[in-house]
């Protein structure tokens, strides 16, 4: 008899904050840069140096906290997490242990249209470590390792979820939602590939209907949403196999091997460090005024959930469309701006989700770098609505606009793409086509109504596609009925 298992997943997400300078010194946080050039005595942990908190880090952490409904602590402090590793110049990481800056938040996810609330246990601030490059595979098997401390001291927030997720899809949805929110509130670059957004997962199985948590494994090194989902899928299978064969899960840290598509054991709990956390005596406690939190709350932009709700309720978009448009703040703002200039939300949404997103994807361009602006898109849609150009023409114009950045008017003029809607001149062309296609007329009169499509095609060909299809149809119907 086989037992059915329930999956329990919690995520620990690290987001690099996009402050200009590091958390405890004034070195730049900029990504890249020659090795060991964004460093100073403080972030190198030279003897005698002391950390001084960058207040922007605190502000960004509070922003993140209020954006996911956290309670902001009015008293918080930094602690030292002690362990030896060459990427950690002080041999301790300044982090927060028992009094994090934010706690007890939540966010809403949706999987297949089903909504669910995921709890957020806490958010805390900490400093990033440096980067090591080993001559071999691991540090212990290497002849030498090179250390780059540019990233040392870049501010991070760690966002710890409750073990509320029940499938890899939910975990992915949570991660995507978190990314969207952090992007909206402008505190992080949220690029998983560059490591500015990182995620570890705790995953365990338990028999359906039981409440006691199973033994968990911690999975690391998942560098994309896809990797997160795949690693969790693999891990579920692995744990299920072990349990079904009567084995027990070992509490351990496992790393996701992207190439092989498997998770591999890194270290067991017995080997785990005792980090000997204690309050950092070099930093003073953080006292937060409720007024300041309120100020930050009021300065937040409209968040994705609220935006989506407005798009559905006020602008009449479908849940699905609103969901896609609000997934990125840049896209949503593009939409909002365009709608203020061309007040047909559904048309705007279709264009954004259609040609615009397609071309952005194909060319790997971000919204902010696109040559198409809301003004240009609105002007194009204006032309189409006026009947000046057809829908088909509009697509052609848009593609050109995307590449060159020219306005719709410029492109229409250059290509001579003006729609002919004048019944007089179109009437003449219609007459000529009728005259030249007696066979089709006969078919039509025999009841083969499809023949009209062929005639329209001929007219469009004659006018190089500039004829207004509506007017052509109307004229054809009239003239054919008079025959």
């Amino acid at each position: 008899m086989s037992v059915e298992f329930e999956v329990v997943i919690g995520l620990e997400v690290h987001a690099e904050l996009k402050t200009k300078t590091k958390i405890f010194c004034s070195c730049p946080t900029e990504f890249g840069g020659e090795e060991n050039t964004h460093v100073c005595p403080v972030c190198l942990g030279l003897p005698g140096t002391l950390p001084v908190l960058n207040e922007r880090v605190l502000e960004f952490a509070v922003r993140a906290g209020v954006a996911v409904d956290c309670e902001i602590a009015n008293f918080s402090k930094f602690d030292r997490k002690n362990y030896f590793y060459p990427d950690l110049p002080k041999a301790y990481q300044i982090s927060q242990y028992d009094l994090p800056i934010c706690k007890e938040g939540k966010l809403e996810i949706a999987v297949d249209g089903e909504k669910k609330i995921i709890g957020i246990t806490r958010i805390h601030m900490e400093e990033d470590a440096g980067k090591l490059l080993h001559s071999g595979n691991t540090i212990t098997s290497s002849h030498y390792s090179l250390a780059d401390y540019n990233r040392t001291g870049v501010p991070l927030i760690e966002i710890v979820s409750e073990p509320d997720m029940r499938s890899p899809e939910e975990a992915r949805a949570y991660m995507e939602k978190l990314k969207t929110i952090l992007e909206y509130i402008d505190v992080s670059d949220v690029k998983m590939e560059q490591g500015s957004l990182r995620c570890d997962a705790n995953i365990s199985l338990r028999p359906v209907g039981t409440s006691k948590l199973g033994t968990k494994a911690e999975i690391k090194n998942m560098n994309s949403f896809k990797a997160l989902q795949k690693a969790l899928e693999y891990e579920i299978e692995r744990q299920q196999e072990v349990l079904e064969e009567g084995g027990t899960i070992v509490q351990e840290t496992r790393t996701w091997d992207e190439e092989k598509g498997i998770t591999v054991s890194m270290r067991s709990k017995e080997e785990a460090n005792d980090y000997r956390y204690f309050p950092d005596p070099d930093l003073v406690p953080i006292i937060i005024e409720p007024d300041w939190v309120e100020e930050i709350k009021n300065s937040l932009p409209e968040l994705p959930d609220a935006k989506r709700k407005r798009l559905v309720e006020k602008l009449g978009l479908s849940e699905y469309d609103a969901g896609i448009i609000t997934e990125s703040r840049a896209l949503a703002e593009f939409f909002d701006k365009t709608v203020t200039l061309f007040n047909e939300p559904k048309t705007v949404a279709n264009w954004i989700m259609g040609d615009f997103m397609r071309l952005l994807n194909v060319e790997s361009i971000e919204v902010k770098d696109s040559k198409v602006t809301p003004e240009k898109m609105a002007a194009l849609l204006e032309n189409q609505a006026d009947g000046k150009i057809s829908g088909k023409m509009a697509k052609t114009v848009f593609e050109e606009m995307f590449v060159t950045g020219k306005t719709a008017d410029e492109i229409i003029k250059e290509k001579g793409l003006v729609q002919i809607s004048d019944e007089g001149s179109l009437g003449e062309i219609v007459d000529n086509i009728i005259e030249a296609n007696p066979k089709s007329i006969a078919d039509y009169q025999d009841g083969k109504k499809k023949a009209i499509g062929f005639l329209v095609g001929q007219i469009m060909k004659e006018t190089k596609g500039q004829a207004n299809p509506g007017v052509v149809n109307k004229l054809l119907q009239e003239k054919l009925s008079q025959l």
Partner: protein
Amino acid sequence: MSSLTELTAHELKGLLDKGEISSKDLVKEHLERIEKVDKKVNAFMTVTKEEALKQAEVVDEKRKRSEQLSPLAGIPMALKDNMCTKGIRTTCSSKILHNFIPPYNATVVEKLMKADSIVMGKCNMDEFAMGSSTENSGYFPTKNPYDLNVVPGGSSGGSAASVAAEEVVFSLGSDTGGSIRQPAAFCGVIGLKPTYGYVSRYGLVAFASSLDQIGPFTRDMTDCALVMNEIFGHDHKDSTSAPVEVPDFTKALNNDVKGLKIGLPKEYMNEGINPDIIECYKQAVAKLEELGAVCEEVSLPHTEYALPIYYIIAPAEASSNLARYDGVRYGLRVEGEDIVSMFKKTRSQGFGEEVKRRIMLGTYALSSGYYDAYYLKALKVRTLIKQDFDQVFEKFDCLLTPTTPTTAFNFGEKVDDPLSMYMNDICTVPANLAGVPALSMPFGLSKGRPVGLQLIGKAFGEGTLLRVGYTLEQNTTLTRPRPELKGVM
């Protein structure tokens, strides 16, 4: 005529201002003195002769141009070797930092350089400031200028000895549990541990961050006030630095203690205190009463816990502060088969016995399962000790105690008995735990060895300590002994 090296900064200032001597003369004289006595005293880890002479010329030029100069301009001084000096080796008297040359200056060093004081060199100390005799230096012990057979105290033994032996006019030390005051007492000079946060710790190589403070060694109260004027003050590079204004401390030098309420903590007068020291202490009390002060016995009931909790808190912080010496980036590296063995070999060979002992103590106190019983409990008791001081300072202006239970002891006498060595800090540790200022001043001799009196003040109440000290200085001859330097001169 007395030699220049005997004089204090404010006495020398008069000669410099009148043009009777130049800074270069002064530096040369002190370099000669170092040359002559330091072979025996061993106060210095590094003497920066060339830099000092060059610096003196610069100051002489400034004086010629009649520039506005600090009272300490051109005055030779020394720094404990745990204060970072740009381009000058800073070892903490540890093998693990044998070749460490900081790329930056500690804030106090910056300040003294701005005041045009002349850095003559870096002083020997107990390794990483852990010890009470300077026998724990990773290089050599410093001798007491009063008697080369006894220790100068520690951990700032080199700084204290350099001032007592008249190798420099003043020096800086650091005090975590008595490391300025105890050697000041042993060497017959003045040593002040300021209020926690009054002097920037930036650039002071940390031993126990919540206790460490930098302070001066001088030969009289006026010099002490002059050095305080230069090194005190808020520093944005140190988060624990207090954002307070610094008064002109020379204004506190009043020869008047009338009506001042001085508490005499009974817990400090235990059976472990040497009778000669008690005798000196009683004389001081009598003198102060005679001068109009009101001296009364007071109680600080949690005093007995100060030493045990100090030996939890300080090692705990040290175990973390000293973890960075791993051979990866600077200092000693002993190669190993892999990274872990490199860490182990470097730290095993780089640190001395006492440092290792405290790292182990501290690591243990912070370990999971022991944290609550040791570290957390120690922090709670620390709060009680602070409250003791708060309470007595509601009624009293300052407290008077002996600085140490004994005078300077012989080399090797306590080095194998850490507990008895730790007991030497019994009178000094509470001020560090409470963060309040405390000053040790010489007051008589016992069998030829100096005796120290300790004045403890309210937070930011250094002025009162100077006032009491200055008054004693003006009214007795016991406050300024001089070593004979037998066998040296």
